[in-house]
């Protein structure tokens, strides 16, 4: 009996979903807002990359929410890892092989530079703060693979992360003061296509890049270098 009711419920539900999807034509633009962004995005924001223009200018407040979600996720993660009891195991990490250590030492600065390039050029080329931060975190992953015993101060990561998160909000409030609304683009837009253009967009992306990079690096650091910290004490 229960199963029959469940099947009936599923049928009714799928019919409703079918009706609502069927009324939308496939492959045509449903709303006019996409066309508007494509035609006027560069003129409005000064950013050549339309995705960046939408993410940081038209939908800047959503990005603030996204950053907050990431911050909360990292907070929960580190809370669990700090309260978790350390199980006693062999604390001697196996030393990395020659190929791994030389390769990672060679690649680390270039990957770091590439990450910084991605988020500085977020308004000109594909990419942005989130992608650049992830690339920076993978550079630090390489670094920790080579030197598992390297001690990094978790305080500095948290400080950088909090400061850059605050800088985002401060820029938004400055937009409220000098412009009309929260996160309004109050700096001059400049010539589209130049590195220094698009007002506050590169600034915000630099802060997001630093924030995401330090957050993800902090996660990797907590997962990899936890035993060493206890060992020192």
């Amino acid at each position, binding site marked *: 009996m229960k199963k029959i009711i469940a099947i009936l419920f599923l049928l009714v539900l799928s019919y409703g979903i079918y009706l609502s999807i069927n009324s939308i034509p496939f492959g045509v633009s449903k709303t006019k807002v996409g066309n508007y962004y494509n035609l006027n995005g560069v003129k409005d924001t000064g950013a050549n990359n339309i995705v960046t223009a939408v993410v940081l200018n038209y939908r800047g407040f959503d990005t603030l929410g996204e950053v907050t979600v990431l911050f909360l996720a990292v907070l929960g993660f580190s809370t669990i890892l700090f309260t978790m009891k350390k199980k006693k195991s062999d604390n001697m990490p196996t030393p990395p092989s020659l190929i791994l250590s030389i390769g990672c030492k060679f690649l680390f600065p270039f990957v770091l530079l590439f990450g910084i390039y991605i988020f500085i050029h977020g308004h000109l080329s594909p990419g942005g703060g989130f992608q650049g931060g992830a690339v920076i975190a993978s550079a630090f992953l390489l670094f920790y693979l080579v030197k598992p015993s390297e001690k990094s101060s978790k305080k500095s990561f948290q400080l950088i992360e909090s400061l850059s998160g605050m800088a985002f909000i401060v820029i938004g409030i400055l937009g409220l003061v000098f412009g009309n609304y929260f996160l309004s683009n109050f700096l001059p837009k400049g010539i589209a296509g130049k590195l220094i253009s698009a007002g506050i967009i590169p600034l915000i992306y630099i802060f997001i890049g630093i924030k995401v990079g330090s957050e*993800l690096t902090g996660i990797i650091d907590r997962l990899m270098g936890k035993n060493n910290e206890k060992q020192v004490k």
Partner: protein
Amino acid sequence: MIYFTIILISIMLLCGIIAAISKDLLFAVIAAGMASFITAILFVFLQAPDVAMAEASIGAALVTALFVLALKKTKRSE
């Protein structure tokens, strides 16, 4: 081009199935990483380089590394 895409998608499906049913969790993690790497390539074909970059750096690199590190702290087999 279309055949290459079909081959990529079938490899991706295979990786997804392996990730779902594998008893060895390390295999599952590597297969999931491969699936997201192929997703990144498909995003480039679909002319979405921003999403492709995010998928390649987060999905293929960082999440795989995080899962491997988490497996090191727990058990390898299911």
